[in-house]
């Protein structure tokens, strides 16, 4: 609905702006144009909008950009997938309007965000949720059941053979081969690794002796560059096990992880349920939706090996034109439409409608605060 208005093709949009205060993306004259005097022309977004950050969001971002630019032909949206850290730095420098990041802002980054955005600082909004699959390559086996400590022991080199009792006990009826396990991890620092090891650290009852880290903790096994590198190694070598975005694992076998008393296969719905079961832990007020994901959740159907990727925005932008573009684009991203488009393109998990509505209303609040 919002999107149609913003595309501004319809003259009657001007009347509707009275009702929807956030939909007053006047981008020509910031201070003097009041909401009521908007002409349809000023509803059209134009110019450039720049964001940067996590490559995790890139595939979905392509879809979002394409859809939103079709509705706003004069607007060019650029997203530079430099990585989460690079995106946050660019955002805090003021060189991009928003950042995409696999990790929420760190404490000192909240402080520099005050310099960037003004007293209200910046907030994290989760718009991209994706299950991380533990994938393996064994002839004739599509699915295995494992609990978190088994997975942790495999990835820490404590279980080295596929027919180890720890695996066999959870998979009665599956003919496990007598073959060495080759673990495959990411060679580059990544949000996927960080979320995967966060799950291992929190859910494995101490079987994973390391802290959550974007950089792989031990010196074992093989490593590949990026998700595609890991999947390529997994696909080409039998006996391997690794972790990758669920949408990318193709025909590989996937592990169903133990949640409560059942084993849940990775799914977008499961990831969304796990996010629901977690509590927002943002430190910058109620609008800050940085989640502390509950890896030990026992909610039915939940899949806690998942990654929540955020967009990081200012609570108030100095430049109302920039604010109008950022908020309207991200409102689309967080909307049900946008989430469905992301899910179709990247296999991500659409966020729940309550969360979607909440994020949209926060973004509308930002637009209002910035004088749009």
């Amino acid at each position, binding site marked *: 609905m919002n999107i149609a208005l913003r595309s501004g093709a319809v003259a009657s949009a001007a009347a509707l702006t009275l009702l929807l205060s956030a939909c007053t993306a006047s981008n020509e004259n910031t201070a003097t144009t009041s909401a009521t005097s908007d002409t349809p022309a000023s509803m059209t977004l134009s110019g450039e909008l720049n964001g940067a950050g996590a490559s995790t969001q890139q595939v979905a971002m392509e879809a979002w950009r394409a859809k939103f630019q079709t509705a706003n032909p004069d607007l060019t949206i650029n997203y530079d997938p430099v990585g989460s*850290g690079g995106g946050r730095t660019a955002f805090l420098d003021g060189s991009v309007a928003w950042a995409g990041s696999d990790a929420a802002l760190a404490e000192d980054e909240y402080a520099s965000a005050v310099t960037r955005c003004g007293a209200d600082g910046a907030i994290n909004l989760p718009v991209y949720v994706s299950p991380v699959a533990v994938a393996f390559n064994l002839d004739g086996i599509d699915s295995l059941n494992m609990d978190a400590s088994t997975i942790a022991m495999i990835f820490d080199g404590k279980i080295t053979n596929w027919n180890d009792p720890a695996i066999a006990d959870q998979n009665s009826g599956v003919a496990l081969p007598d073959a060495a396990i080759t673990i495959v991890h990411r*060679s*580059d*620092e990544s949000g996927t690794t960080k979320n995967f090891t966060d799950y291992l650290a929190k859910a494995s009852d101490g079987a994973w002796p390391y802290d959550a880290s974007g950089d792989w903790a031990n010196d074992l096994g*093989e490593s590949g560059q990026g998700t595609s590198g890991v999947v390529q190694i997994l696909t*080409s070598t039998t006996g391997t096990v690794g972790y990758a975005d669920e949408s990318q694992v193709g025909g590989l076998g996937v592990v169903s992880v133990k949640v409560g008393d059942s084993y849940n296969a990775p799914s977008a719905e499961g990831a969304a349920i796990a996010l629901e079961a977690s509590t927002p832990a943002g430190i910058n007020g109620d609008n800050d939706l940085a989640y502390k994901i509950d890896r030990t959740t026992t909610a039915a159907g939940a899949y806690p090996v998942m990654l929540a990727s955020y967009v990081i925005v200012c609570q108030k932008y100095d430049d109302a034109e920039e604010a109008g573009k950022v908020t309207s684009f991200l409102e689309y991203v967080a909307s049900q439409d946008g989430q469905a488009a992301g899910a179709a393109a990247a296999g991500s998990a659409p966020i729940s409608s309550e969360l979607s509505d909440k994020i949209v209303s926060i973004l509308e609040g930002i637009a209002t605060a910035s004088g749009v």
Partner: protein
Amino acid sequence: MTITDKRETQEVPLTAHSGSFANSAFTGLSTFAASLILVLLAAVAAFLITEAWPALTDGGAVLAEKVQWIKPEDGESLIQVIGYLVFGTVLISTIALLIATPLSIGIALFISHYAPRRLAAGLGYLIDLLAAIPSVVYGLWGAIVLIPVLQPFYQWLGSTFGWIPLFTPNPLTGEVSPTGRVALSASIVLAIMIIPIITAVTREVFLQTPKLHEEAALAMGATRWEMIRMAVFPFGRSGMIGATMLGLGRALGETMAVYMILSVGLSYSFNILQSGEHNTIASYIAGQFPEANSYGVSALIAMGLALFIITLLVNMLARWIVSRRSEFSGAN
């Protein structure tokens, strides 16, 4: 020779065109070009030093807290990580050089002295073509095509020659890496990448060997191989060393191919058939840069500085060898 002959027969003094403007313009242009190199080099060095300075002077405590891959408690402080990476870089490049140099010299000799003229021209062209393939393509080809072919060979090498420290299999599994993503694979692909460079330079040098030297050797009854040993190699020695150093320079700095082929790790290990043992500076920077914060970037640039220094040392060494040798070879 032919050019000077022509000039002499023209009987027009070369200075007849009053070329004072052209002269000074050309002098200015070439001086500018030469000094631009120095300025660029100085700019790169200054950039590396200023950007790396915070990481180098920090003392480790802040870095360890801000950068995930700097873990002094695990023996991986910045300096220690750089140490591992310098070792990995030099090891992989050296093995690449050991593979590439004999092959390149063989190819160059074949083209310059053995092959029929038509074949030589075509072959030279093909070798030059190899140099034009982007390294990311070599990386993909190595990772997807070459490594699966090499892996059974590694398996054999590990089981037959495992007693040689270089080929020791993994003590945990008793086997070499099942994926073949090991240092030797990276070295082989690097070798393929630097062969065209070394071949092109040595071929040119071999072609420069004075015909009189060669004919004199043959006239004394030398076989072709003896002639090459007596006339071609002494004359081309400094050129061969220079070419090898050029190749080493490329191998040291190569990023994408190594990045895509190697299963990385940090250690001082000579086990080139085990994965997760080595990494190179350039590939490490490429892997960690995307997610690095400002402290991480500074630490990565410190590694870049280390690579810069290694390359500088290699080039100085090559210069020194060339200048020492050239007096005896007649190549000057």
